[in-house]
């Protein structure tokens, strides 16, 4: 689809590559930072990554960095308030987030409270409530999937209602994303596969959905190419630092792409299935991706066909006749999912997850049509159509 008009925004400085961590103290200093709060989770600490980061910061002159490591996988407004309190107690002037999506989203919310005041992040819920620049936030992702290091959104659970609340503002964007292969080397195979497919879905939906534009396309294509070339290789050789770095970059590129072009039906189904059946987001993305591409095929055959180049390489692309390219792209994604099932037991159908019952599907379909991600899907989706996709994905 040609863009009659588009907007693109990404003010995040990316520090990517070997010894990227060692660049952090200098970059923090350029922003006037003297005492950052390091926020992370217990798993990251147990993996020894906190020690690696603290050592790099201290060697760069940032001594006795306070640490908040009590962020659960599904973080909440209470956790945000506790971390903000610790930051105030230590008179911190910035944040360094070390972890996956939950840690990064929590750090963004903490930054709102410490910069703008208050104890209840709820007061800033929705879009446009954060009215000015926050204190510096550096993000060090330990998974290669969410892209949250370059997005303007934070999602935090409300402990009272149990519902996820989103916060959106350009001021939520971190100041820097630090991609160092040491941070993802120890990621277990299942999470490597699931987060890799999360990033793959970000990139593919960005390329296929309505808000795509030339800049988001460039980031999406490069992300798809890196994941297609490296995800299976990294699962076969988990200590492959080059491959890990490629995946980390791919996740960031995909994050830049989708935060400027939005996503579609895969995410709408994923959000609602995740809420109903408590399935990890990356698993939902991997399960739904080929079925949604088939659903969108009649209105996006060209774009899906173009994806064959980054998915399969120039040789396969060149020898595949144009009318067959879209089907070949989807077949390539199915083949990748088979490999991920073999190497990491990443489910390919809802039945394989063991957590979704066929009887859940109508409720998921009902919730799905109200999900905002559908706004940019290239086709409208009725309840019956959402249910049909869910039935096919059930297996």
């Amino acid at each position, binding site marked *: 689809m040609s863009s*009659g008009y588009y*907007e693109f925004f990404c003010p995040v400085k990316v520090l990517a590559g070997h010894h990227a961590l060692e660049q952090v103290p200098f970059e923090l200093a350029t922003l006037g930072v003297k005492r950052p709060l390091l926020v992370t989770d217990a798993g990251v600490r147990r993996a020894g990554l906190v020690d690696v980061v603290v050592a790099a910061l201290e060697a760069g002159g940032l001594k006795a960095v306070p640490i908040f490591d009590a962020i659960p996988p599904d973080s909440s407004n209470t956790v945000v308030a506790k971390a903000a309190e610790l930051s105030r107690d230590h008179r911190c002037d910035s944040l360094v987030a070390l972890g996956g999506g939950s840690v990064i989203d929590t750090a963004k919310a903490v930054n709102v409270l410490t910069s703008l005041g208050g104890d209840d992040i709820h007061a800033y819920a929705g*879009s446009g409530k954060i009215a000015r620049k926050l204190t510096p936030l550096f993000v060090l992702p330990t998974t290669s999937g969410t892209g949250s290091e370059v997005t303007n959104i934070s999602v935090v659970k409300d402990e009272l209602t149990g519902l996820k609340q989103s916060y959106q503002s350009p001021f939520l964007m971190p100041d820097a994303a630090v991609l160092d292969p040491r941070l993802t080397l120890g990621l277990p195979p299942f999470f490597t596969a699931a987060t890799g497919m999360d990033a793959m879905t970000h990139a593919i939906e960005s390329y296929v959905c309505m808000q795509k534009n030339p800049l988001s396309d460039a980031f999406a294509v490069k992300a798809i190419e890196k994941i297609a070339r490296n995800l299976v290789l990294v699962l076969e050789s988990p200590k492959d630092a080059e491959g890990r770095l490629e995946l980390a970059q791919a996740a960031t590129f995909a994050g830049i792409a989708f935060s400027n072009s939005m996503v579609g039906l895969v995410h709408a189904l994923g959000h609602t299935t995740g809420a109903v059946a408590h399935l990890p987001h990356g698993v939902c993305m991997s399960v739904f991706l080929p079925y949604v591409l088939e659903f969108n095929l009649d209105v996006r055959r060209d774009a899906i066909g173009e994806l064959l180049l980054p998915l399969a390489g120039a040789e396969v692309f060149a020898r595949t006749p144009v009318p067959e390219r879209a089907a070949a792209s989807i077949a390539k994604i199915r083949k990748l999912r088979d490999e991920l099932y073999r190497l990491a037991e990443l489910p390919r159908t809802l039945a394989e997850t063991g957590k979704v019952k066929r009887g859940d599907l109508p409720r998921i379909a009902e919730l799905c049509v*109200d999900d905002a991600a559908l*706004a*940019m899907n290239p086709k*409208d989706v009725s309840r019956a159509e959402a249910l049909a996709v869910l039935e096919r994905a059930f297996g």
Partner: protein
Amino acid sequence: MGATDPTVPFATDATPRRPVPYGAERLYVKTLLKLVAGLLEAVSETDEVVAAEVAGLPDGLLAEMSVFGAPDVGLRVQVRGRRLVAQDFEGASDEQAPRIEIVFKHITNAFLVFSFQEGTAVAFAHGRMVVEGDLAHAMRLVRCLDRCETIVLPKLIAERAVKTLRGLPLAEQLPLAARTLGSLARVLVKGIR
């Protein structure tokens, strides 16, 4: 001298001209938004599909559509049970009610949408407008608007306005459109308060 003379920068016949003056766009959009508000009320009375969608929205919800830089141009409808009730956009509104606001960033953006040159979803994708409020409710309201356009507009125009046209059989559309337009007439005669 003209545009073909390379020695003359910004030759007069190269100056972009507006096909429709801003003032005319403003008048057109203001009128159309009033009609759309009335149509939403009317279709929630005549069409069971729209009524069922409205029933899923919180009672009292205010939905507003406005244009940045044009404070007198806009529409406001309020959810009352299974019905949408059009309200006077320039009148006072319930400040405590939950609210969804769709704001066009310029009068021209609204003109492109309401003259069916750009579909609503495409305009949103192009960043021509912003939505504030509960997005799940906004999705439901968009479905109401799409259904309304499918009922009252000829197919040729409706397919430019909505993302995916779910056309009705003519035998179903024509009586429904007639009832909806009749209901619209009643709303307009009664006046939007």
